[in-house]
């Protein structure tokens, strides 16, 4: 690749300061889409934006993508105010919308070339970058086919490539995994992690919490247009959560738990739910059970870290 240098040559986070939003509010008539949102997505990290349908995720992303003026609050994207200086924000931000429309009769390559022109990138450099991006999202074979023949998942991947055309410092990905097949999801995870490793601030909104667990560093949980919690996923190992224990002989397991003085939830076909303080405590318990001769076959957190936090925080759905 002639135009690309080694990743190490990129000055890390010079103009990049990620996303900072405080007290963002946005109403549509008498509908409060976003009530009071605080969010920080630092450079070099992947931040998840999770919340139920209608919790204001997409509205917030539209504010960050310079499409909506917030009613209140302060927002900085890559160090610039999206309302006062939208052009500066656009030059540094890649946005992948939840509903990805595409110019149906254009080929994948033409779509990306049009976007590159719209970002005023010099033509020859843009051309080789487009080829690289198409390879990255595995659309090289379909590069010269019109986008209307693409499947939904392929269109999503083209949408990701489109958001990356101008090599932005901040990425706003709205439901990037929807419509993707398992392999594409795993590849998306890799792409997103690499972007963060290259110093970009990545904000991902998604419902697929299990996906996010392995992809994100931090999670901002929103509900009813408000930030209800900010989780750091490295903290999750030391946070109490529910684990599921399953043994060949459930009676022996229950007896052993009783002997160890450990409370548990109602046992079912999947196993016995047990509240455990931390990963270390879980390992300790497992050792004790094995020592006692309980035929344990499974010991796993019930659902992902995010899923548990999410379920705890969003019980009252809209």
């Amino acid at each position, binding site marked *: *690749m*002639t*135009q*690309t*240098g*080694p*990743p190490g*040559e990129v000055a890390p986070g010079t*103009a990049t300061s990620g996303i900072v939003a405080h007290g963002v509010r946005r109403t549509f008539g008498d509908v409060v889409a976003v009530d009071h949102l605080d969010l920080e997505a630092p450079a070099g990290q992947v931040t998840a934006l999770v919340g139920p349908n209608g919790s204001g995720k997409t509205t917030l992303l*539209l*504010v960050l993508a*310079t*499409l*909506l003026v917030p009613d209140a609050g302060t927002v900085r994207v890559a160090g610039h105010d*999206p*309302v*006062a*200086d*939208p*052009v*500066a924000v*656009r*030059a540094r931000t890649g*946005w992948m*919308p*939840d*509903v*990805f*429309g*595409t*110019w*149906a*009769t*254009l080929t994948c390559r*033409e779509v990306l070339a*049009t*976007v*590159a*022109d*719209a*970002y*005023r*990138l*010099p033509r020859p*450099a843009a051309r080789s*970058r487009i080829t*690289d*991006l198409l390879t*990255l999202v595995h659309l090289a074979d379909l590069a010269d086919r*019109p986008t209307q023949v693409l499947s939904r998942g392929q269109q999503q991947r083209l949408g990701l490539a489109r958001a*990356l055309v*101008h*090599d932005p410092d901040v990425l706003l990905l709205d439901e990037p995994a929807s419509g993707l097949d398992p392999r594409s999801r795993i590849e998306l995870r890799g*792409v997103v992690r*690499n*972007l963060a*490793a*290259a*110093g*970009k601030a990545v904000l991902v909104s998604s419902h697929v919490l299990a996906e996010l667990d392995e992809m994100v560093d931090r999670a901002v949980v929103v509900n009813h247009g408000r930030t209800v919690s900010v989780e750091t996923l490295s903290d999750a190992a030391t946070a109490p959560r529910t684990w599921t224990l399953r043994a060949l002989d459930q009676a022996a397991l229950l007896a052993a738990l009783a002997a160890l003085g450990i409370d548990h939830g109602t046992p079912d076909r999947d196993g016995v739910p047990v509240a455990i303080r931390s990963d270390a405590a879980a390992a300790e318990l497992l050792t004790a059970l094995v020592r006692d001769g309980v035929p344990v076959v499974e010991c796993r957190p019930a659902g992902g870290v995010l899923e548990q936090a999410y379920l705890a925080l969003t019980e009252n759905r809209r």
Partner: protein
Amino acid sequence: MTDDVLTAGPGAPRPTAGPVAPAPGAGTWRLTWSGLRTVAVLELRQRVRSTRWIIVLLLWGGLLGVLTALIHYATHQAFAGITDTNTDEQTRQAGATTFGLVVFLVLALGALVAPALSATSINGDRSAGVLATLQTTLLSPAEIALGKLTAAWITALALLAVALPFIGWAYLDGGTPAGRLAVVLALLAVMLLVVCAIGLGWSAVTARTTSSAVLTYLSVTFLGLGLPVLFGLLIPLSQQSERVTTRQMVEIPSATTAPAATDSSTPPPMQCQTQTETIVTTHTERIWWVLAPNPAVVIADAAPMPAGSDHSDVLSSLRSGVRELRLGEPSIRDWCYTDDAESRRREAARQAERERLGATWPYGLAGDLALGACFFVLTVRRLRAPARKLARGTRVA
């Protein structure tokens, strides 16, 4: 490899470090050639690929061809019926009339087709989810709007180009000066641009494509048919009773009542008499401007007159008709229709007065261009992002 793509090196295109140093506040009205070209090429490419444009152009050309042939035949038949003029003059008049009719035909059919070229441009993109894609790039609202307008206009000009042979045929029929051909073509192009701008504006304002299409057709119909109707409806409002001088034929009051005078076979001797009376006067000079922006009026008024004395072809008649309305009724109403020196002098004076008024078309054209400009400005304002207000039922993305 993967990392290379994700983080372009120093030589890679980076808008932050590249030729683009976005100045703060450089916003809505920033226009660059490359931005304009990007949008126009995008639009034209989609048009060419998605519509069966060859079929559209063939149908358009076929329809024009058939109607032009019919107009040509009908006009020449009609003028061949007049035998008291010499054949050269006859051909010239037939040619000029054919030309006028074909021009109006192209104008009318263009007004039917042109709205479809831009009336769904912006709300169509919005509902397809591709408008925000452009808005979040470095393209300015003015570039997006002008690019779309340019693409629609180029498409309209392609229709005009297909119509060119038929207008040319009518021109070769004779009786039309070259200047008239040039002016008419230029104004047809301008009128198509105005229609495209109106369609673009409505597509930016309304959420649904059907609404914008209907509103665009209504707007064009208002200009073409609504204005003449409105003019007609305004006439009663412009009327008032006034004392004016009239000249009319009256019987000569004779002292000697000859018995022959009662005989119906010999009319009584009449004479033209000037008197003052109160009659209803129509002040078209107060409302003529309602007609001025009508595209047919603009084109007819701007088209240079053919050589010769007889200006009875369609374009010339419309031109003198509107200028007559602008002049209003003469101060002396001559209903004697005598061909004496006095009436000839008055007629010449009125014609001179009419010419002194100057052309009507600059007003009409200015009105049309202002209308198109208003719709264009409206479009640009609606394309501004971030948006504070959203129209009812519109999605941002």
